[in-house]
């Protein structure tokens, strides 16, 4: 191995493979949007996603007509699929911000080829997440009552409530993610404008690029703003899932009332987010021939982060079980026994299988670099993380303090349709993004090319 191929972590695989120039990387990424014909798999995937999106609209229409009674929710299980799906989606979003902000500040250059794509993933996942609490409101058309504004009723939101914190956390998260994403897109939109061949594309990308010229002054302010946005997004991403977890832990329900929730939720969020990144990136790089830009090193790094955060989540499970015994609280002890051996026992053990046991395969480098195996491990984590939220929400609520209030919950047809429909919304947006915007940051990859060139001349 030549010395210039060695990276700080000792990986043999470079960040960008093959001989690349400014022009070639811009062309590889830009042509996907501008000139290349879209593969059959794009149309196939888009058709399925769009069909599911239509299903989502039908489910929402029926919900608005009939009310939340079409779902299986009851008292005491008033929070079921809607909140499970909300927490699951918003967790998936976290990997995008983690990759784009935290890894930028830590100078992890490998993030460059995947950050744009994962930021888009964040936006779409948060959009899916946002729909659920809104639909769960019962009267979604008065959602604006959640915001503080001087209304004619003379009321204000209860700012001491974690549910109100959540409104602020999630809407801030979406707005900041959108700003961060657009700021990064600006130079790339200018590249697309300059390379577009048809008039329509030139005008559209030209308007979106806002007249970006790449002048020294532009770059100076842009770099400064981008770095600051990364710095702002870093504490934000840690705060969002912490606030989501406070929705649970501020309540006195056994299984929710726990101080470990914020860090354990954040780790779980990044865990499921990286799983989704792998599930999306593994097929995508193959279909669009991006193996030179999204290399095995990226895949391996993402798998490593998944393993690390997965271990934190497993520690969270262990501590939950330990504390319920150690606290000596009979309700807590009952909650744990009910989770593992009660009527929903199989969700708990499936969670352990999907989220704790199967991911242990990632210790092996052979699995981490075997794309098919890794894809299925990531899928298992995604299912596992969904089950985790199901276990937390449903098994805690269905049997709390007084046995006379106990009630079983089972999802109805419309619960499933709404959930599947939100997956359709996510993938429809993702397919459109791949079709119309550069899925890898061209400007940042050009910077990487320039750095590689310099490294080769100095070694």
């Amino acid at each position: 191995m030549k010395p210039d191929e060695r990276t700080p972590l000792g990986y043999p695989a470079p960040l960008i493979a093959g001989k690349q120039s400014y022009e070639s990387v811009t062309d590889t990424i830009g042509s996907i949007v501008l000139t290349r014909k879209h593969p059959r798999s794009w149309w196939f995937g888009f058709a399925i996603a769009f069909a599911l999106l239509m299903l989502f609209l039908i489910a929402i229409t029926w919900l608005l007509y009939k009310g939340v009674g079409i779902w299986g929710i009851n008292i005491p299980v008033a929070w079921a699929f809607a909140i499970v799906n909300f927490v699951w989606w918003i967790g998936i979003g976290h990997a995008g911000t983690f990759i784009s902000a935290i890894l930028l500040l830590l100078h992890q250059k490998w993030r460059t080829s995947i950050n744009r794509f994962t930021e888009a993933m964040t936006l779409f996942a948060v959009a899916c997440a946002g729909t659920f609490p809104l639909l769960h409101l019962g009267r979604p058309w008065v959602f604006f009552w959640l915001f503080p504004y001087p209304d004619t009723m003379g009321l204000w939101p209860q700012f001491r409530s974690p549910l109100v914190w959540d409104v602020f956390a999630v809407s801030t998260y979406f707005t900041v993610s959108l700003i961060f994403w657009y700021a990064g897109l600006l130079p790339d939109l200018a590249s697309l404008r300059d390379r577009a061949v048809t008039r329509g594309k030139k005008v559209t990308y030209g308007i979106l690029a806002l007249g970006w010229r790449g002048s020294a002054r532009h770059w100076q302010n842009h770099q400064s703003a981008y770095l600051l946005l990364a710095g702002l997004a870093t504490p934000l991403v840690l705060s969002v899932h912490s606030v989501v977890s406070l929705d649970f832990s501020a309540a006195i329900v056994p299984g929710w009332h726990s101080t470990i929730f914020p860090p354990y939720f954040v780790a779980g969020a990044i865990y499921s987010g990286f799983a989704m990144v792998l599930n999306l990136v593994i097929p995508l790089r193959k279909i669009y021939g991006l193996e030179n830009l999204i290399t095995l090193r990226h895949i391996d790094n993402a798998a490593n982060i998944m393993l690390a955060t997965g271990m934190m989540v497993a520690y969270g499970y262990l501590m939950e079980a330990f504390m319920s015994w150690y606290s000596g609280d009979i309700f807590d002890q009952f909650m744990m026994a009910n989770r593992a051996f009660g009527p929903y026992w199989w969700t708990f053990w499936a969670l352990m299988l999907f989220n704790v046991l199967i991911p242990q395969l990632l210790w092996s480098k052979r699995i981490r670099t075997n794309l098919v195996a890794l894809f299925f491990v990531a899928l298992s984590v995604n299912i596992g993380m969904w089950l985790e939220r199901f276990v937390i929400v449903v098994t805690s609520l269905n049997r709390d303090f007084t046995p006379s209030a106990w009630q079983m919950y089972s999802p109805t047809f419309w619960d499933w349709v709404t959930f599947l429909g939100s997956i359709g919304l996510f993938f429809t947006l993702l397919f459109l993004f791949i079709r119309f915007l550069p899925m890898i940051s061209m400007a940042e990859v050009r910077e990487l090319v320039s750095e590689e060139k310099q490294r080769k001349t100095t070694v």
Partner: protein
Amino acid sequence: MKTEKSIHGFIAEFPDHEEILEAAKRAYAEGYRCMDAFTPIPVEGLAEALGQKRSLVPLIVLIAGICGGIGGYFMQWWAMVVAYPLNVGGRTMNSWPAFVPITFELTILSAAIAAILAMLALNCLPRLHHPVFNAPDFERASTDKFFLCIESNDPKFDLTATKRFLESLKPESVKEVAP
């Protein structure tokens, strides 16, 4: 007859960032002030070499963040203590620990919105057209070429001398930019 006012300036094309940085330094040393460089990647030190001041973005973001934080706390305090006090078990009205999350979120939100707006405003964007787009080959400034443009409103600008000076920097080409 061509005069200095009838063109936007001269633009020189360079192959990479070391060359343009060197050219910018020499042009500044030569006494040119009204000039700009256009590059496909951010070049460290280029703005300073052209004599531009430090970016104002961080200061604006700081001020916006502080205002957002104070405003966020004030909003909660006013709603919970003055406008709609709700006595829950005699707990204090100004319960500041419960106000921390929203104060934090609004700090971040204001700072982030300020960051993008300040960046755009300081760059005079959106501005969909600019004379420099008239430069031949300029579309490559967003792909693989590095440009240095000396504008005709520079006091030292001269139709022949400036062109000769730019040629002496050994660029790939020097071209006129229509206004």
